């Protein structure tokens, strides 16, 4: 084996799956060095889990030769969560972008345990996910937020609004995209409460997209400006405009005056607001 040049050894390693790579890196110091230094040059693969016969699918995926899996898509997953957890654990150093669509009902505690440990997770999309018992988690972890340490972009689409609780205090969260939240627990306006709680605890947020978030019983602006974050981009769909008082909108926009550069209304606001925006704000882009 020692007769083979290093670049050939790297070629051999590039045929290995992640698990075998980890084992190989324990063989000797040279192998360990070579595997560590060549990881970046090895191929990137996406993992996509769509099959219902998840156990089998994941076992196969696990054996794919790879350097690093960066992207994971889990669609219609209704299989064994333990296997999924194992997969996440194997790729926990490299996974950066995860999309989850329509999984089976997961308990929030299991979800957090499996996903929050991913060290390089920076983008997470949850679509049609319903996670149970999110409130419990909030109570346990608040204050000691190490979870989702590198998460920057979060998209929550058509999920139960309790999910917001899981991301409270995520330090690096800079972009939040929320579409159509709902709750099974009345009163309805709880969505806004949870959302605002998340916004209030995300100091680095500079992009916000709210789309079709119903239950705007309370005025979103009145609560947003209180905790004074500076948005650079904002896209908002004011579904129930009658609840948005002009005074509050003006105050909110004035507060964001310095940072706000991109403002997109998905529903056209009243003429008075348009007038106000045009006279008071210097925007790079304004769209109705």
């Amino acid at each position: 084996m020692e007769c083979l040049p290093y670049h050939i050894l790297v070629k051999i390693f590039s045929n290995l799956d992640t698990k075998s790579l980890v084992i190989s890196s324990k063989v000797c110091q040279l192998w360990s060095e070579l595997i560590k230094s060549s990881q970046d040059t090895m191929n990137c693969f996406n993992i996509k889990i769509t099959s219902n016969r998840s156990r089998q699918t994941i076992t196969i995926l696990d054996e794919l030769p790879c350097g690093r899996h960066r992207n994971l898509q889990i669609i219609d997953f209704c299989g064994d969560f333990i296997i999924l957890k194992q997969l996440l654990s194997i790729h926990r150093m490299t996974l950066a972008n995860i999309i989850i669509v329509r999984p089976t009902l997961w308990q929030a505690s299991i979800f957090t345990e499996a996903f929050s440990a991913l060290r390089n997770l920076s983008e997470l999309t949850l679509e049609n996910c319903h996670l149970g018992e999110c409130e419990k988690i909030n109570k346990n972890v608040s204050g000691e937020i190490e979870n989702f340490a590198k998460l920057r972009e979060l998209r929550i689409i058509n999920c139960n609004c309790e999910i917001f609780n899981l991301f409270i205090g995520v330090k690096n969260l800079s972009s939040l995209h929320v579409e159509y939240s709902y709750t099974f627990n009345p009163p309805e306006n709880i969505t806004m409460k949870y959302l605002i709680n998340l916004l209030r605890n995300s100091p680095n947020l500079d992009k916000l997209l709210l789309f079709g978030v119903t239950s705007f019983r309370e005025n979103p602006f009145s609560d947003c400006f209180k905790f004074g974050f500076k948005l650079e981009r904002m896209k908002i769909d004011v579904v129930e405009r009658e609840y948005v008082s002009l005074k509050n909108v003006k105050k909110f926009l004035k507060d964001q005056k310095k940072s706000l550069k991109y403002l997109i209304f998905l529903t056209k606001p009243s003429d008075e607001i348009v007038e106000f925006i045009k006279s008071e704000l210097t925007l790079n882009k304004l769209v109705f």
Partner: protein
Amino acid sequence: MDIDRPSDPQVSVVSSDGTMFHTTLKSILLSGTIKDMIEHIGEGGVENMGAIPLQNVDSKTLEIVIKWIEHHKDNIQPTSEEIKDKTADFIDPWDENFLEMDLDKLYNLITAANYLNIPQLLWLSTRKIAMLIKNRTPQEIRSLFNIEDDWTPQEIEAVQKENQWCEEK
């Protein structure tokens, strides 16, 4: 194509230990290195060209290489770029069988495939080694490939800690 010129002329190569092998142009062109050499000879040179010396390949290995290129001379060879994107691909049973050889021979074959620039053969032979690494413990890998365990106890502990998650069942 010229009528009195055979479509696949004979070419000779000489191993590092001086053994001469005869094969055909079509086969030998699977080697990127030799292809480059021949292209530099230019017009009409192939027939008059003497035996090609291959100083980095011994006769035993060259015999194996020639067996492989002659079997594959009519197959379209993937480029190194295409090979890079390969995943768990279908392997020709002939190749699978062909690669049944002891490790020393396999190392020599890999070195030769690398020197001669035959991407597909290099991929097959390195993959073969990778298959041997799979599903073995570090100790098993060490004894199989005769590798010395050069970790200090402290290092072993550190590495084990870092990789604990991999052994979780």
